[in-house]
C-alpha cells in the first residue's frame, strides 16, 4: 500500500509536468488547429537560458521569472515570424514547419550549450517532505508550482477581458473579429503563454531528468498523450489527461509484472489507445458534427 501511494504521488509529480506540456500544446491547438511538435524543444531552449542565467550567478527565482518573460516574448516572435505566414497553408505544410522548428532549436541547443548532460538546480531541495517516505520536496514543489500556474491561468481565462477575448478568438474567429477582437494577436498571445508554460515545465523537470538538448522529447510525448486522452479541444481535460498519464505511466512500470519495466511506454500507450476506442475525441473532448 505504501509502495502504491508512493508511486501514485511520483506519478502525480511527473503528471504535473505532463499536464503543463499538454496545456501548452492545447493552447496552441485551440488557437491555430495544429499540434506544436516543437513545444518540447521550445521548453528545452528556455531551460537552457535559465541554466545560463544561473551559471552567471543570478538567484534561482530571478532567473525563473526572467526566463518566463523571455519565453513569452520568444513564443510571440515565433508565431509572428514563422507561423503567421502559414496560417492559411494546409495542415501538412504546418507540420513540416513544426518539424523544422524542432530541428533548428534542437541543433541550436547543442551548438550553443553542447550535448553534455548538465545538472539543473532545484529551489526546493530533494529531502523527503516532512520526513515522509512518500514524496520528496522537489516533487511536492513541482506539484505546487504547476498548481499555482494552472490556477492563475484559470483566473486569467475566466476573469479577465483579455482572457475572454482569447477564448472567443479560439472558439469562433469570424464572429470574434466582427466584435473587434484582433484574432492575429490573440493567436500570438496564445503562443506566448504556451511558450511560458513550457518554460516553467522544463525548468521544473530538468532537476529530475537532467538537462540536455533531447531532455523534453520523452516529456512532450507524454504531454501529447495526455492532451489527446483528455481531449484536444478542452484545456481542463488536457490537464487532467496529463496527470492521468503520469499516474498510468508509473503504475504500469511498477505493477505490471515482467513486461512492465521494458515495455512501460508501449503499455501506457496501449491504455490510452484503449480509452480512445471508447471516447474517440478524448475524455472531455467535444464530439465533431460534420455537414455533408
Amino acid at each position, binding site marked *: 500500500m505504501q509502495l502504491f501511494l508512493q508511486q501514485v504521488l511520483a506519478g502525480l509529480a511527473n503528471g504535473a509536468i505532463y499536464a503543463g506540456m499538454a496545456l501548452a500544446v492545447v493552447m496552441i491547438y485551440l488557437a491555430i*488547429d495544429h499540434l506544436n511538435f516543437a513545444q518540447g524543444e521550445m521548453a528545452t531552449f528556455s531551460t537552457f537560458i535559465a541554466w545560463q542565467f544561473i551559471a552567471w550567478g543570478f538567484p534561482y527565482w530571478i532567473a525563473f521569472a526572467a526566463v518566463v518573460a523571455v519565453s513569452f516574448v520568444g513564443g510571440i516572435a515565433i508565431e509572428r515570424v514563422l507561423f503567421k*505566414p502559414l496560417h*492559411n497553408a*494546409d495542415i*501538412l505544410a504546418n507540420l513540416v514547419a513544426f518539424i523544422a522548428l524542432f530541428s533548428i532549436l534542437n541543433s*541550436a541547443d547543442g551548438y550553443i550549450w553542447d550535448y553534455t548532460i548538465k545538472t539543473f538546480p532545484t529551489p526546493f531541495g530533494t529531502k523527503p517532505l516532512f520526513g515522509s517516505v512518500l514524496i520528496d520536496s522537489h516533487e511536492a514543489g513541482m506539484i505546487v508550482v504547476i498548481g499555482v500556474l494552472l490556477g492563475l491561468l484559470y483566473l486569467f481565462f475566466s476573469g479577465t477581458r483579455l482572457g475572454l477575448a482569447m477564448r472567443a478568438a479560439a472558439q469562433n474567429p469570424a464572429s470574434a473579429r466582427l466584435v473587434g477582437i484582433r484574432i492575429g494577436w490573440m493567436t500570438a498571445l496564445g503562443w506566448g503563454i504556451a511558450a511560458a508554460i513550457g518554460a516553467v515545465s522544463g525548468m521544473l523537470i530538468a532537476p529530475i531528468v537532467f538537462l540536455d538538448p533531447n531532455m523534453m522529447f520523452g516529456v512532450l510525448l507524454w504531454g501529447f498523450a495526455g492532451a489527446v486522452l483528455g481531449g484536444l479541444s478542452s484545456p481542463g481535460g488536457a490537464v487532467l489527461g496529463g496527470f492521468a498519464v503520469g499516474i498510468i505511466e508509473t503504475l504500469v512500470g511498477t505493477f505490471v509484472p515482467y513486461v512492465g519495466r521494458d515495455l512501460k511506454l*508501449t503499455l501506457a*500507450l496501449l491504455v490510452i489507445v484503449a480509452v480512445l476506442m471508447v471516447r474517440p475525441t478524448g475524455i472531455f473532448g467535444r464530439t465533431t458534427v460534420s455537414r455533408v
Partner: protein
Amino acid sequence: MTTPQQETVPLGAAVARPTTRLTTGHWLLAGAIAVALVLPFVFRGFVIFQLTEVMIYGLAILGLNLLTGFNGQFSVGHGAFFGLGAYVTAIMMQRWNVPYYWTLPPAGLVCFVVGVAFGVPALRLRGLYIALVTFAAAVALPQLLKFNFFEGWTGGVQGIVVNQPGVPAFLPVISADQWLYFFTLAVVLLMFWGASNLAKSRSGRAIMAIRDHDIAAAAMGINANLYKTLTFGVSALYTGVAGALSALAVQFVAPDSFGLFVSIYFLVGLILGGIGSLWGCLFGGLFVLYVPNLAQDISRGLSGVFFGLIMLLVIFVMPSGAAGFARLAGAWVRRRVAPPMPPPGRANLAAPEPSGSIGPNSANLATTPVPEITEQQPVNMEAPNIRKPNRLGDRK
C-alpha cells in the same frame, strides 16, 4: 447479355482518353527509366547505394502517400512498418535461410496484416487521434524488438547482420551493388505501377472519395470502413516491402534504426514531395537522403539548423510540394506555349492560387483543381482537399 453491354458504356468514356497514343507523360517515364538503367554504370559503389536508398525511401513514402495523400488518414508511425518489413526479411534470410527474393512477399504480407490491425481501431478515430495510434506503433516497435522474449529471433539490441544478395550466375559482369540497384529498381517500378493502377481504378476512386468527404462517400454506397482498413493494410504493405529492400541494401537491421525519426522523415519526404503524387514520392526520397547530408556539409555543428531552414524554404517556396510546384509550372508553360487552346472564359480560371488561400471555413468545392489542368491529366490523383484543417482536426 445486357449487363456486360451496360458496363462497356462507362468504359467507352475511359477509352476515349489516349491510352494507345504515347503522351508526354509516357515519354518522360520512358526517359526516366532509361536514365535509371544507365545511372549505375556512370557512378561508383557508394553513389549506387545512395540511389538504391532513394528508391527505397521513395517506395516507403509512396506507402504513406497511399494512406495520407489518397485516403486522408494520418500516420506518424510508418517507420514501424518499415522496420517490421526489414526484420521479416532479416529473420527469414539469416535464421531460416530463405533466399532473399522470397522474403519480400512475406514481409509485405506481414505488414499488410499488421496494417489492417491498426486500421481497425483507426476507424473510430479521426485526424490527430489516428496519428496517436500510429505514433504508439512507432514508439513501441524498437522496444518490442529489444524485448528479451523475442531476442532469439531479433537479436535484441545488437540486431541482425544480413548477407548481401549475390549477383545471379547469368549476370557475371555487374557488381553486387549494381545488381541490388537493378533488383530494387524492378521491385519499385512494379510497386509504382501497381499504385498507379490502383489510383485509376474503381477502388482508387473510392479511396479518394473517402478522403474528400467520407460521409458523402458512404452515402454514395462506398463501404468506407472496408476501404479505410484495406488502405491502411496496402499502405503498410508498400512501406514494409521498402523496409525489406532496405534490409538488403544496408545489410544490417537494429532496433534503433527504426525509431520515431524514420516516421518523421517519411512524413517530411511525403509533404515536400507532394501529397497524392506518385513521382513526388521519389523527390521526397531524394530530399530525405541528401538534404541532411547537405546540411552537414554546410556546418557540422549547426546541421539541424540548416536542415530546418531548408525545410522551411521548401515549404514557403512550394507549399504544395515538388509535385504541386511542377504541376503549376507545367500549366504555366503550356499556357505560354499554346495560349488559344482553352476557351477565353476559362483563361482566368486557369491561374490557380499557388499557396493555400483556403480558410478553414470555406467550402470544399473551392479547392477542386481548375478545369484546364484536369483535362490534361485525365486521372487527377492530387489531393487538393487535404488543405482543410477542419477535416483532419477534430474541431469544427
